[in-house]
């Protein structure tokens, strides 16, 4: 044990250092390892959760996209149907309008024709009157005398009757 003396080995000091080590073990366990390992574990947990969440979000996004696609297909089909229907209806409406227009035109023509006939009659009357005047003037020239009112009237009537 001479060598131990040379190195200054002292059982009390040895024990003191062992105690030192144990004290340090306790302190570090409490103040360093526990909190650090805890926070490391927490972070690991959080990262795992985040990854899981990301996966979930991706899945849901894919689902939503699919839903949107089907919805789009359905909607576009509906729109096409609606447009088809609208076209048909428009064609029908056009036909109807045409029909109505034609009818109206026919009515107008009929009315115009009727009005034209009345006009013609009146014009005939007028022409006759004018003619009577002209005839009277002509007779006066031919006979060379002014027929009195009574004769004139008789003559005109006679002539008019001949004319018509």
């Amino acid at each position, binding site marked *: 044990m001479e060598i131990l003396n*040379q*190195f*200054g*080995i*002292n059982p*009390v*000091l*040895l*024990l*003191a*250092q*062992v105690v*030192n*080590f*144990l*004290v*340090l*073990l306790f*302190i*570090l*366990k409490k*103040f*360093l*390892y526990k*909190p*650090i*390992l805890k*926070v*490391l574990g*927490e*972070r690991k947990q*959080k990262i795992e959760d985040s990854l899981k969440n990301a996966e979930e979000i991706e899945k849901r996004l894919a689902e939503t996209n699919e839903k949107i696609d089907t919805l789009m297909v359905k909607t576009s089909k509906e729109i096409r149907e609606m447009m088809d229907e609208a076209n048909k209806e428009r064609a029908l409406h056009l036909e109807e309008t045409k029909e109505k227009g034609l009818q109206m035109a026919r009515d107008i023509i009929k009315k115009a024709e009727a009005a034209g006939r009345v006009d013609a009659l009146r014009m005939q009357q007028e022409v006759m009157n004018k003619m009577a005047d002209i005839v009277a003037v002509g007779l006066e020239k031919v006979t060379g005398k002014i027929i009195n009112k009574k004769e004139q009237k008789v003559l005109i009537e006679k002539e008019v009757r001949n004319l018509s």
Partner: protein
Amino acid sequence: MESGIVLPPEILGYFYNFPITNTLLVSWITIAVLTAVSILATRKIKLVPGGLQNLFEIIIDFVYTTVSDLAGDKKTKVFFPIVATFFFFILFGNLLGLFPGFGTITYKGEVLLRSMNSDLNMTLALALTSAFLTHAFALRYLGILGYLKKWFTLNPIFLFVGILELVGEFTKVVSLSFRLFGNIFAGEVVLATISGIFAFLVPLPFYFLEIIVGFVQAAVFMMLTLVFMVLLSEKHAAEH
């Protein structure tokens, strides 16, 4: 200068009959520094780390994964604090020993501060603690019978091997303590000598060397303790 070649630690004074040596004082300082640093690192612990917390997280995460790789999940919780404490204690002791003032400030004619591990008391205490805990864990995980079977069997060849291994357990303590002591003590002597030759700039490369040595020795002590613990507390290890 001369104090660098003295093997036993210098006694600064007595507390009742208890000798206070300079290495014991430094080990207390080391404990205080480590405590302060770890409290600082974990005082405002955050999920998003920064500064000191980040540094300690890296070290602890590395040590923890190393331990769990070797020991398996169940034993890691038990082994890790001990192994990590060896690492931090030795590392901080070694690095602290490189600070200015060590070996130069004197108190009543004796060197006041001396690197913690340049005292065989310290390293032997660590080695004995390591060995004691290793065997305690072996007993705990194998039971008394399983533990004894590691050393004694009826097969004469394995009985001999077992006795050899028993001797090996003592040499483990010696090698652990003397490796650490030798490295750090030699470093102290080298630094003192070089500083004695020329104190400016010349010792710098040696200081760098000592930083590396201090880290390596701490890591070696930690790894060896871990490996011994894992080997001894493993079942069927004696049947190879």
